[in-house]
């Protein structure tokens, strides 16, 4: 019965949008990477938006996966944007020294979309 609890990758024009669930387990995080990369290949998307606004805890595995996925997406010609990180998550990540690599952050999904539509200079 897989698919019941799994992630949905939404295609918006030439961008992919993934909403990461509340407390993503390692398998979900792994699934995220595979699904995203296949979707990029399929739709030839130029970017990925990861909405993590409901994520309360960011562990090192998740951080590394985001960082690696960003690199993989870049290899396939896309840009990754992390949207809506919570303040408490940002503080913990800083304290633990977690890095998201080349991923860009934005305050919310709206601003993430702005990045792809070039309405927004702040990159």
């Amino acid at each position, binding site marked *: 019965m897989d698919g019941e609890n799994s992630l949905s990758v939404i295609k918006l024009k030439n961008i992919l949008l993934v909403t990461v669930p509340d407390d993503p387990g390692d398998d979900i995080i792994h699934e995220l990477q595979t699904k995203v990369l296949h979707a990029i290949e399929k739709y030839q998307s130029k970017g990925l938006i990861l909405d993590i606004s409901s994520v309360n805890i960011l562990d090192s595995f998740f951080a590394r996966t985001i960082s690696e996925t960003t690199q993989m997406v870049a290899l396939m010609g896309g840009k990754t944007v*992390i*949207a*809506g*990180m*919570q*303040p408490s*998550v*940002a*503080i913990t*990540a*800083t*304290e633990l020294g977690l890095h*998201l690599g080349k991923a*860009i*952050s*934005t*305050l*919310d999904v709206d*601003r*993430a979309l702005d990045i792809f539509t070039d309405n*927004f*200079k*702040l990159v």
Partner: protein
Amino acid sequence: MNHSHSNSKYISNFNSWAEQKRFVNFTDEDAALLQKLHPFAVDYADVFVEKLYEHLQKFPDTKRFLGDEKMLMRLKLAQKAYFMDLTSGDYGEGYFKSRIKVGIAHQRIGLPPRIYMSTYCYYMQLMIPQIYSNPTFDVETANGIFSALHKIINLDQELAISAYIHATDEVISRQTEEILEMSTPVIQIWEGVVAAPIIGMLDSGRTQQFMERLLETIVQTNSPVALIDITGVPQIDTATAQHLIDTINAVKLLGSQVIITGVRPVIAQTLVHLGIDLSGIITRPTMALGLKVALDKLSIKVVDVSKE
């Protein structure tokens, strides 16, 4: 006799007071000697209180704490009760608690410890003749009573002064907390721009609090730019710089960008000498210039209409 637990926060407890009693060598014998004085103290109480307050009223410094007639009456009654307590022979927990209560009350009305202490001196001046001119006491007994009285007064003073200090410490720590909060306000100064002036040194405890407030405000106001103004930071060291960099990284993770403003010449010199690399961060000498950069980033143009 037994008071409530209202003073439970007091640092000293009844057990440590027992230790203090041993330290000043206050024994059961002393308690018994004081009790011998008790009947005379009861007889003398009214005269004593009148004389004491007569003395206190002579000085403007102490007079202002005595209040109106009604207040004076209350004080005299309390003083009389204390005077009799001193020789009651019972120096248990009830006694202990009421001493602390008195110390806190005195601190609250702002009575200087100087006056509190000196009043005891006058108290002894009144009491010594009462002990030595009393025909019932031989010299040895009188000496014993004098010594016991001296000890119990010393114990009382220690309790009251410690309570004073404790109460003052509480005020200080509360104020320190308030200052800490006030010294790092985070304010929205434009739609999409928050500003946080830092006053004073940025230590790790403060950084934590500052970071939380800055991040919360950025998310609440949905601001892509945050100005951190360090004009009020007297000097910067590697630790402060690291705290600043941590804050900048956390802000970056949210999807907002920090502009450091108020970089004075001395700060710029120190940063370079310490080898702290802020090259990836936009820095400006004044907040005004920082705001300009922020508005530019948000594609906002401010025009002087008089020049159009």
